[in-house]
């Protein structure tokens, strides 16, 4: 417990990164991105049936939201570089799984048709 208290005081200076003003601006950014997603889904997508450029838009906007949540709400932007790498680098393995399984599912389509 004493270790916890000392660490907290050592870290204290870095937490100034997240003021109340900044928290609310991140909230408005997240809300704004969600509203853009809704506009794309309700007003733009119905005019272009089977367009294959709409899903990438959703995914890019989603990754933007994920960045703002992890960097600011979860405070990762203000941690040491080593800490950031320890969390972000393992996530890259997920890209490998996506590549493997999308490739596999293209093969399944062929089997099913």
């Amino acid at each position, binding site marked *: 417990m004493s270790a916890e208290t000392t660490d907290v005081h050592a870290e204290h200076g870095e937490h100034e990164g*997240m003021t109340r003003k900044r928290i609310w601006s991140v*909230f408005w950014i997240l809300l704004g991105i*969600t509203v853009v997603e809704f506009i794309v889904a309700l007003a733009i997508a119905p005019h272009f049936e089977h367009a294959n450029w709409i899903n990438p838009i959703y995914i890019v906007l989603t990754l933007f939201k*994920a960045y703002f949540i*992890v960097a600011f709400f979860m405070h990762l932007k203000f941690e040491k570089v080593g800490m950031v790498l320890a969390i972000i680098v*393992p996530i890259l393995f997920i890209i490998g799984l996506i590549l493997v*399984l999308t490739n596999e*599912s293209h093969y399944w389509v062929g089997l099913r048709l």
Partner: protein
Amino acid sequence: MSTVVAQPVDEIKSTPWSGGKSPFEVEYGKIMMWFFLLSDAFTFSSLLIAYGSLRFSAPVWPAASKVFQSVPGTSLEQGYPLVFVGIMTFILIASSVTMVLAVEAGHRNSRKEVIGWMIATIIGGFMFLSCQALEWNHLHSEGFWWGHIPTKETLEEFFDKGIPLAQQQFTAQEFANLFFTITGFHGFHVFSGVIINIIITINVLAGTYDRRGSYLMVEKVGLYWHFVDLVWVFVFTFFYLV
């Protein structure tokens, strides 16, 4: 004898990686929460990638704008896609903000503010869970469940025109299983998050963290709560938008 100035061998190194302190300057419990969330991210991405690959491999899929077009609990039955899930998303983002405000109040050791924001977060969590219950109940009343799909007559309402019944039945079942499994797993995370938030709030009320001198526990449950929000961002995109 020698004039060469030797390097002192017993000099104490004080670089971040020379031991004796956390090179990341993060307290043990917090770093373990991060690594737990990393493993949880792998679990959720496995589920979502399984969903993606099954959906890619299916020639047809139930249209999201036809499956989710009502606002359960109101008289708006048809023609309102994304309205209800929009409310759910707003609730979860708002409760994430109240959580981060509780963490911020914790840094200033302001107990009253922490309590207020924690209670707001818990209410947001319960609101989200209630919406999820309504959504599940609505889909269940239409005939979707694990291992169950709507009857032949009603099934075509959920697809674009001109798709053979056999294909509809096949992918509707895949959709139902994946939807209830993934949103159920996420809902379970929200539920445990609410329980943990309640425990921490009780500790705040009891003055545990004032005695400890830090509100770091609020920060740790905050990480978990934001992660739940983060997962919802992806579930929302891949089930309701794509």
